């Protein structure tokens, strides 16, 4: 993966830049020491590392504004960072770029139960939002698996999901307002405690923009009352096809479960060996279907899903009879990644989404690729929404294995696109999938996306090298070739 060539002139100015930044963020807000900077060299995608030019840790919106204005005036690149849990290298530093850490923005500013929202700084963790309101029975619905560590600012940047998002939505569906700073240092506010901001939906555009458009300094998110109860079914199937058909039948029956997860045989075995969740080992596919709501609804729907499972060839079926049992069903799924980590020195987590009916074909082809590359793969799958997380097992200490795992991963993502899916369901493009973007989008599509970037950051200083395989100058992208003198389309009927 090639990042933009570092600017030698900028590297030479490091000391001066750090001194200037320290005037904006006094005290311990600027990190220059190489060992300390190293702590920021990578995010959750640890295969890529780069020590940043300098790290700055502002604690007020005004400081963020001044830092960005300074960088804008001095033509310095900036990489924003929350908790650094990105799985796509979204927060990968640049050698000649300022790393802007939002870790000090860690306060909940307001809890408003009447308007059912929380106003928080972007460095508050996802789980921290729920913890702030759970005493009153409320919670923040999107729950990415990194929720203990990942921040709400990062969630906005990546439009994070989680296992409950088919029913409760992604970050974008639960975000009400933002304060953010543009690369020029301008501070703007979008939305608030009301719904649907006026003018263009900049709030929607910002969500999932991977830190390329602006730096979020405050968020307002919706909170919900916890469902009265939840129960889960554990269902085993002799084939992936049968499990996939069962998922389709549940949805076709009008049921949207709170969560619906699938694991393939390698993932089941790894998880069971690790946490002893009571998973059956003689099935090819395992489904966890969770229903939540009032007791009477949950019981009613559990019975209906059971009947659907029976008629779709489930060979193993267990319904949780207690909260402990429900959590035990989930324990295996939630530990799937570390479980795979136990059976392999390293693993590489992919994140494509496919139309669900293509699952048998995709798993079969993935099996063939696994043989071709000589690398094992285990699959966990957000079955309700078609979001696939293949875990490719490799050993980084074996020369060439990382490259092989990456090539295998790229082939999987290309396959996802080929069957009508997309490159990333929830982890983002970042640096990881940047060069695969042309698999999904042609030049015109990508040029339009980059022109949107130009409207926010005309010099391309904010998080460059992410998302787009090629960087174009805004002036070049904006050029319009007009062909005059055409006959005004005689083939168009007019009346």
């Amino acid at each position, binding site marked *: 993966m090639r990042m933009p060539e570092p600017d030698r002139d900028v590297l030479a100015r490091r000391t001066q830049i750090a001194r200037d930044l320290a005037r904006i963020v006094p005290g311990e807000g600027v990190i220059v020491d190489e060992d300390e900077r190293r702590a920021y060299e990578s995010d959750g995608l640890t295969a890529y590392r780069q020590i940043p030019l300098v790290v700055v840790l502002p604690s007020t919106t005004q400081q963020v504004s001044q830092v960005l204005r300074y960088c804008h005036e001095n033509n310095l690149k900036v990489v924003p960072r929350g908790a650094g849990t990105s799985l796509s290298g979204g927060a990968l530093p640049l050698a000649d770029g300022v790393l802007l850490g939002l870790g000090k923005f860690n306060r909940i500013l307001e809890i*408003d139960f*009447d*308007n*059912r929202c929380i106003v928080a700084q972007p460095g508050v963790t996802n789980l921290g939002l729920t913890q702030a309101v759970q005493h009153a029975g409320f919670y923040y619905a999107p729950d990415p698996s990194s929720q203990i560590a990942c921040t709400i600012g990062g969630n906005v940047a*990546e439009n994070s999901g989680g296992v409950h998002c088919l029913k409760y*939505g*992604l970050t*974008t569906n639960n975000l009400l307002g933002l304060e953010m700073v543009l690369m020029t240092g301008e501070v*703007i*506010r979008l939305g*608030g405690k*009301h*719904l*649907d901001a*006026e*003018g*263009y*939906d900049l709030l*929607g555009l910002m*969500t*999932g923009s991977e830190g390329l458009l602006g730096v979020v300094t405050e968020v307002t998110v919706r909170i919900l*009352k916890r469902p009265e109860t939840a129960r889960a079914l554990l269902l085993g199937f002799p084939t992936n096809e049968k499990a996939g058909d069962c998922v389709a*039948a549940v*949805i*076709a029956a009008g049921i*949207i479960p709170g969560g619906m997860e699938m694991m393939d045989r390698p993932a089941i075995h790894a998880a069971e060996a690790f946490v002893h969740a009571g998973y059956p080992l003689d099935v090819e596919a395992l489904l966890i279907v969770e229903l939540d*709501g*009032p007791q009477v*609804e949950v019981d*009613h729907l559990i019975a209906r899903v059971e009947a659907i499972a029976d008629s779709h060839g489930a060979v193993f079926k267990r319904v949780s009879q207690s909260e402990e049992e429900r959590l035990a069903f989930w324990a295996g799924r939630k530990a799937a990644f570390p479980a795979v980590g136990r059976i392999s020195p390293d693993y590489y987590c992919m994140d494509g*989404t*496919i*139309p669900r009916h293509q699952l048998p074909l995709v798993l079969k082809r993935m099996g063939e690729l696994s043989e071709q590359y000589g690398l094992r793969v285990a699959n966990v799958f957000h079955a309700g*929404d*078609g979001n696939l997380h293949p875990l490719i097992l490799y050993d980084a200490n074996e020369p060439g294995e990382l490259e092989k795992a990456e090539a295998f991963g790229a082939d999987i993502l290309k396959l996802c696109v080929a069957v*009508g*899916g*997309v490159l990333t*369901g929830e*982890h983002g*493009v970042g640096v990881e999938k940047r060069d695969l*973007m042309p698999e999904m*989008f042609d030049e*015109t599509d990508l040029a*339009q*996306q980059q022109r*949107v970037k*130009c409207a*926010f950051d005309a010099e391309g200083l904010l998080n460059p090298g992410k998302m787009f395989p090629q960087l174009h100058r805004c002036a070049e992208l*904006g050029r319009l070739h*007009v*062909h*005059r003198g*055409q006959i*005004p*389309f005689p*083939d*168009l*009927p*007019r009346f």
Partner: protein
Amino acid sequence: MQTVLKPADAAQVAEAVAWAVSEETPLEVLGTGSKRGLGRPVQAGHALDLSALSGIVLYEPEELVLSAGAGTPLAEIEAVLAARRQQLAFEPPDLGPLYGRPAGAGTIGGVLACNLAGPRRIKAGAARDHFLGFKAVNGRGEAFKAGGRVVKNVTGYDLCKLMAGSYGTLSVLTEVTLKVLPAPEKTRTVLLLGLADDEAVHAMTRALQSSHEVSGAAHLPAPVAAVSPVGPVSRAGAAVTAVRIEGPGPSVEFRCAALRRELAAFGGATEELHSRSSVELWRSLRDLTPFAGDDRHPIVWRLSVPPAAGARIVAALAPLGEFRYFYDWGGGLIWLALPSGSADAGAREVRAALAATGGHATLVRAPDETRLAVPVFQPQPEPVAALGRRLKESFDPRGILNPGRMSANL
């Protein structure tokens, strides 16, 4: 006189826009024109009529997705979904009758371009939340696409959000893909009679704070309740607060009973509307039927506000004199109908009432000359407005598409 261009497919749309760019002549982008009264009037010598880009191109109920030409009638899509017991969960309103036009004329492209949503917005989201992907032609005359056909996707910028609510000023949608959802098995509505506005907002807040998954919360003051097409509402002779519950049969019965218990503290009698009359009530609120034929109150405003502040904002509207209004979205949406008479359609008073709480006000119905003179959409602070102008330029550098529809320079 406007010349109408009616492209037969996306390629002809691109050709038409490229021609308009070369001639520097603006285009008014239309489906069937059913929502022409919404937004600022567009003055363009040519109209681009997309009604030929019609037809469902993909519908997979088990995958919860549907793709259709932008000019596909909404009614056609809703019928196809209903046959499989599915729906557009954002409950798109049919604003035709509000503008004195026939019902059932809108297109899916128009619904998305205006980001419309009905009472279920509070639970299910707006059009924007169900918009998965599109093909379009930008103002440079280039066909491009964004998003996808799966319900979970973060590949590239979410341009669907930007298209939703852009009123055709950024690009011409040619094909759209939406997330569809199962229709609820059952719907019921709990009614509370005779509450004052502030009590009603408290009651709706309580309902929305519960775990009962309320999918509609509206309050109709007595004059608006009186004109409801639903008997138990119009005959109440008092203000009516309505809370909707949807879902599987046993669950709906349980939750309605629980809600009635929990809301008893607010006083007033409670009643329950079952299936058909429940559906009818929410459809009438969705489509603004209380205001549709009200000639004495021709000016209509839509205020999106922090829900708990709803009653306070209406109280602050007193300087307007006589007006009709009702609340939706648990107090977060105020529909306001005014008599004509004031030159700015009450814009000064309406927007002043929002100043303390935040929110925005849209002038939804007014004569063309008023909508040209008064900002139809909430004026934005300059840095946000400037960003909007730069975005417009990034899609439509020559200002060809629906110029002036959102503001004098968008």
